[in-house]
């Protein structure tokens, strides 16, 4: 698979899987207002995924549509970060996961606006507006929960401690990243990491949360090596498409 295709799929699948996870919350959130808020995030992410998957299909050149890619691939072909396939857990866990991804996407889309790939730049410009709001939303909630009650503080600190090991993958540079950076398609990961880190530190400080120590942990969802959770997520997402092959919906 060529590097550009892999790179685009990483972005697409990350948004898709995260959007899918957030979709699970609708009707079950702590307050009606959060049902609407999380649904809004989910819609934005699925929208990004659709644009990116369509572009990926074009790069691939096999005539595959956004649905062929979303509903027809097996998990080893999915290139999302392992962070986003982690289960929702409680609202605190979901919002910590969201913060970690939002800060990343915010910096990424901002940089991608200057990509030599004009299609990616276009998609990034649109996604950036959405992601600014996502970051505001998740950061506000992490602060409220971190600096709320003893219970809320305990819950989000433990969520942060558990999810931190998955952040390593976001900045672990591989051949694809190097090739895309060299071509001016993607920003250098080192730059991204320092900006991401600064944003996260600012939020954690305000939230009175402790930044966990880095862990030499390696899941490489971006290379198709996933945790056990993705299998179940895909089984649910792809079921109808696979149970009725060839049908239009």
């Amino acid at each position: 698979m060529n590097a550009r295709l892999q790179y685009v799929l990483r972005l697409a699948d990350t948004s898709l899987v995260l959007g899918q996870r957030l979709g699970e919350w609708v009707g079950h959130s702590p307050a009606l207002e959060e049902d609407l808020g999380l649904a809004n995030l989910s819609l934005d992410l699925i929208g990004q995924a659709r644009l990116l998957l369509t572009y990926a299909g074009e790069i691939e050149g096999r005539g595959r549509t956004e649905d062929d890619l979303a509903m027809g691939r097996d998990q080893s072909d999915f290139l999302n970060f392992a962070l986003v396939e982690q289960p929702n857990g409680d609202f605190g866990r979901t919002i910590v996961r969201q913060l970690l991804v939002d800060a990343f996407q915010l910096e990424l889309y901002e940089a991608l606006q200057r990509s030599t790939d004009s299609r990616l730049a276009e998609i990034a410009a649109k996604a950036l507006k959405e992601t600014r709001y996502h970051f505001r939303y998740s950061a506000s909630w992490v602060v409220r929960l971190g600096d709320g009650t003893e219970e809320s503080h305990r819950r989000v600190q433990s969520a942060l401690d558990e999810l931190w090991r998955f952040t390593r993958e976001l900045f672990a540079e591989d051949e694809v990243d190097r090739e895309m950076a060299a071509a001016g398609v993607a920003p250098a990961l080192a730059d991204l990491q320092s900006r991401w880190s600064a944003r996260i530190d600012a939020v954690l400080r305000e939230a009175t949360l402790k930044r966990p120590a880095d862990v030499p942990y390696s899941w490489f969802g971006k290379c198709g090596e996933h945790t056990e959770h993705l299998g179940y997520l895909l089984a649910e997402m792809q079921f109808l498409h696979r149970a009725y092959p060839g049908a239009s919906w």
Partner: protein
Amino acid sequence: MYTQGLDSLGKDALHVAKADAAALEARFQARVDAEEKIEPKDWMPDAYRHTLIRQISQHAHSEIVGMLPEGNWITRAPSLRRKAVLIAKVQDEGGHGMYLYSAAETLGISRDQMMAQLLSGAAKYSSIFNYPTPTWADVGAIGWLVDGAAIMNQIPICRCSYGPYARAMVRICREESFHQRQGFEIMMTLARGTPEQRRMAQDALNRWWWPSLMMFGPNDAESKHTAQSMRWKIKRFSNDELRQHFVDVTAPQADFLGLKVPDPDLRWDEATQHYTFGPIDWTEFQNVLKGNGPCNRERLDARRRACEEGQWVREAATAYAEKQRQRASQAA
């Protein structure tokens, strides 16, 4: 403004002499007859206020509970487009619930009080949402039939006498039309699809037709509240009128889809220019209302769980805001 001013209104009302009360009622009815809108701080009969609280909160509860049968299919929607549309629809329903809770709060009840009534089982919500959605076709059927029936009920309420309720309904009706269209589009795609898809669509129609007719409520003869609600212009058409209109509009749509309505007595009457249709099983309706429908327990359990599991979140937000306030006043 809305919830505070009403306390003083209540106290004043107690001291009003009988003759004055009659005069107030007469003036109130004259305003309603003249199609004037009643706004939150206006004088209104207690019975009017209570009827509205009951009706608006029931309507709000229905929207919220209604998020569940369809929300059930968000993670399994068969295409990304369908997934996005379904999330948007369910999100709208949550929003509609919020517009309606807002409107009800202008009458002196709080959102938390209404939620408590729902979760304890004291408040009712539309019977239709106590039915399960085992297949994707159910999502189509709900959009086509249930939202279709809801729209028919709701459009007249856009002209109801109580301002906040009427305005909420205008907002809701504007958003609702896409709901019905997306449902019909799903049914059309299935009806024109593979034999399995056609069977799925017919099966969904078989299960949702009669509960949709029941959504319009009991026959006019059995309906307790109708007469007074019509006089107060809270209700603009009777249950039977609306139900008849629904059948007249929807039966041809089923024909278009090539699906059969599960009513052997359904036929077009050239003389009356209406469809005649078979008898409704009111015992099923009564059972579902009493809490013995297929999903009553599941729906309320889901809402209760969401509430309980979310309590620590709400408390944390409140605690944080309090801390911020204290910090601000100390800094000042």
